[in-house]
């Protein structure tokens, strides 16, 4: 109940109303200029926390998306490289098939051997592909080329140009070879496959005597080699090379047979050559298996890429939802805001006008 109305109370309340209207008006003006309802935590402390948390999540999603991009690129690069090596292997297999059909001669085999050496070198180059400064097939051994070609030696222990092995020096399959990137909270996706898994390893070393430099020679005076490991396409390529090289040797032996060699010995040699072709023929199955392995690795990679694409899509959805959410909290409904702004402006003006007319009135004016 109002006891008295006095100049002081009227003035106080008028000032109060004007200030309130001015505050509303300037608040709406600020919101309109920024386009946001919540400009600092003081506007709405609780919602501000939600915005803050959502923004953080959006940043993280951006990182995950970028990681998915990197993963996809590296996996694609890996997959394409495996395809290229598969092509080379196919060519080597074709060479083997042609060589094995028995119509080959020494000179065609020599041409085959030359091409095979080129194929081996090109396969090793491909297997040593680096992407973003990392050797992609070396596991976590990213700074050293994972494959090196091993060359033979002559009877004196000097290196020759004969390829005897393709050694894998990357992280072994049972080691910690995975390189991973985070694609969701605590979810890490592997981006690589080791050369050992995809292409195998063919580690062949010359055998030396105790002094470490003098080679151990076999009965025919040739250096001997020890096969530490041989598997995958690398093993098959070396096996093929060895088989062809052996065949050429037999042909050479045949050419060099002295006059008057007994027919039985000639037949035996011809038999051996025929066995050589059988060996080459026998390698085809192994080739097929090794190439299947590559296809298999590639297919599992393809599945990874599909999975990544799906993850990326769901991340993009999440981001969109979060943005919608933030926008719902923070953004201004312009239509509503502008009409509010006009009405607050009117209210401000009206309160000032009313105040000035009431304040200027006094009994003094009529005395």
């Amino acid at each position, binding site marked *: 109940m109002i006891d008295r109305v006095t100049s002081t109370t009227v003035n106080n309340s008028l000032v109060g109303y004007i200030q309130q209207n001015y505050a509303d008006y300037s608040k709406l003006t600020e919101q309109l200029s920024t386009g946001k309802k919540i400009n600092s*935590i003081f506007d709405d402390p609780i919602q501000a926390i939600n915005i803050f948390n959502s923004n953080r999540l959006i940043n993280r999603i951006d990182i995950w998306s970028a990681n998915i991009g990197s993963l996809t690129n590296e996996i694609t690069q890996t997959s394409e490289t495996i395809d290229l090596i598969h092509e080379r292997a196919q060519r080597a297999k074709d060479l083997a098939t042609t060589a094995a059909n028995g119509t080959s001669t020494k000179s065609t085999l020599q041409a085959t051997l030359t091409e095979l050496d080129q194929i081996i070198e090109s396969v090793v180059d491909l297997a040593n592909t680096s992407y973003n400064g990392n050797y992609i097939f070396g596991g976590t051994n990213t*700074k050293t080329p994972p494959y090196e070609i091993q060359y033979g030696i002559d009877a004196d222990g000097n290196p020759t140009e004969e390829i005897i092995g393709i050694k894998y020096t990357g992280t072994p399959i049972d080691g910690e070879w995975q*390189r991973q990137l985070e694609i969701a909270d605590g979810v890490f996706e592997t981006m690589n496959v080791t050369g050992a898994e995809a292409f195998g390893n063919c580690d062949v070393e010359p055998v030396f005597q105790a002094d470490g430099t003098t080679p151990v020679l076999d009965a025919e005076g040739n250096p001997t080699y020890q096969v530490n490991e041989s598997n995958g396409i690398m093993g098959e390529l070396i096996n093929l090379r060895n088989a062809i090289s052996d065949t050429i040797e037999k042909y050479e032996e045949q050419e060099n047979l002295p006059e008057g060699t007994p027919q039985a010995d000639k037949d035996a040699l011809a038999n051996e050559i025929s066995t050589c072709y059988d060996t080459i023929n026998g390698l085809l199955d192994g080739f097929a298996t090794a190439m299947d392995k590559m296809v298999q690795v590639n297919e599992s990679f393809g599945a990874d890429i599909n999975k990544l694409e799906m993850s990326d899509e769901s991340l993009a959805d999440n981001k969109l939802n979060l943005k919608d959410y933030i926008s719902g909290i923070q953004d201004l409904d312009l239509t509503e805001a502008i009409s509010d702004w006009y009405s607050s402006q009117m209210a401000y003006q009206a309160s000032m006008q009313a105040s000035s007319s009431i304040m200027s009135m*006094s009994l003094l004016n009529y*005395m």
Partner: protein
Amino acid sequence: MANLFSALNMSSSALKVHQAGINIVSNNISNMNTEGYHKQKLNLGTLTLDLPIGNNVYNQVKTSAGVEAISVTRYTTNFIGSYYRDQLTDQAYLDQQKQAISDLAEMFDELGGNGLDSALEGFYEALDNLNQYPSDMSARINFLEAAGTLTNSMNHISKKLENMKNLGVGDGSSPELLQQSELNTSINSLNDYLQQLANLNKQLSNSNTGTLENNNLLDRRDVLLNEIAKLADFKTTIHDDGSVTLTLGGTKIVSGNKVLATFDLQTAAKYDEYCQQNGIENKNECNAVVRLIKENGSVIENVNNRFDAGKIGGIIDAATPGDGVNVYSVIENLDTLAQTIADVFNELQTREGAFYLESVDGKVQLSNTDLEQYVIFTTNDGSAEVTAGNICINSLLTEGDGYNKIAAAYFEDYDPTAPDPLANIDLNAVGNANNIIAMIDTKTNATSPAFDGIGNIPLSDYYSGIISKVNAALTSSTNAADAQDAVVQSLDNKTAEQTSVDLNEELTDLVKFQTAYSASARVFTTCNTLLDTLVNLGL
């Protein structure tokens, strides 16, 4: 004849009284904008002579002797002043609290970009980059920079918070800081007000009630009591003569014309000294201690707990650890966060099986020699306890090629007790980023014991928690302060309605008194003429 003279006297008293009325109106108008001024009113009464009346009409007329001014009353409110002052005390306390929390909240306004959260996220982002390029110099330097940004922003916020605390109550040991503190200012004005009140008490007891002077003193007293109420929750006893006795927590502070005890501030360190000297258990947790020095020189140490309301109570509460959110609790939380960050990452960095890079003959490879000295986070003041204020990056990692010392690689099957622990480790595996992955994993996985200090929740969640607490406190303190503002506002309005000066009212009174004055003057002239007539009659 006597009647004619009495009419003359009556009109002359009326002239005097209405002159006084105009004075009161003038005083009211002059003070209509004075703070705490209560409208005053001249009370008039008829003047009667004590004569035997009887049934004689003439005698009855003789007894009326005109008008007299009885007293000057002061318009007062119909609610009790102490209730209003209690509301003022609460308002000042809540305002102080709201102000403190707002300052805090401003520091944690991540929408405006405070930087700590983005620094923490940036740190994880740099880890992510390092995971992708574990042996890259640029990724490693980038990571150290991100870690540096994180420690810098923690240092920065910690410093701002310390300053805030110092601004309130000083740092507990420096008398200079205490001198500059907000608490000191408030205590000084309190002492000042108390002295003014004692002086007023003296003047009040010397003046008579119902006088203009007395009313003005009462106005000043009420204003002063309101100011004192805003600072602290005193018990106020108002005596009949208008003088006031103030009591705080059972001790009389002002009584009569004397200030019986003054407030004094000392640092927490000084108080601690006193406690040790006197074998008292020191339970004080505030950096400043208020004490009471009595007139006779005796001292009541530590009366902090007597300030549970008002502005001073607000300042002390904001700087005393407790259940609520204040600078103190936030500093503590940030320190815990800093300690946890250091624990979590240092532990992973130096754990068994972790390997850093080493340049051997121009080629990088893995090594774990002296790994334990290459912690990531350490303190810049040599203390073992990591706080937000002292956390920094180990200089061994920032100097020269120290960036290589970040242990990115980790081998689970590393066995330090084996005869040749490195036999199974491929030292060329510079692309191994398992340790970085473990570090990234702490973004969401907080099961490690290093997270025990923050309740096994991720770092960013803990930080969000701090902000949430501050913001929730901001909401509730703002609401409480606004509500209290409304209460005080409505009491203010009520007071203004009941006691303030209205110009129209005064102008009406002015005209009223003026008219009466003119009329009395006319009566005086008329009587004079009558007397004149009478005198001429006799001639």
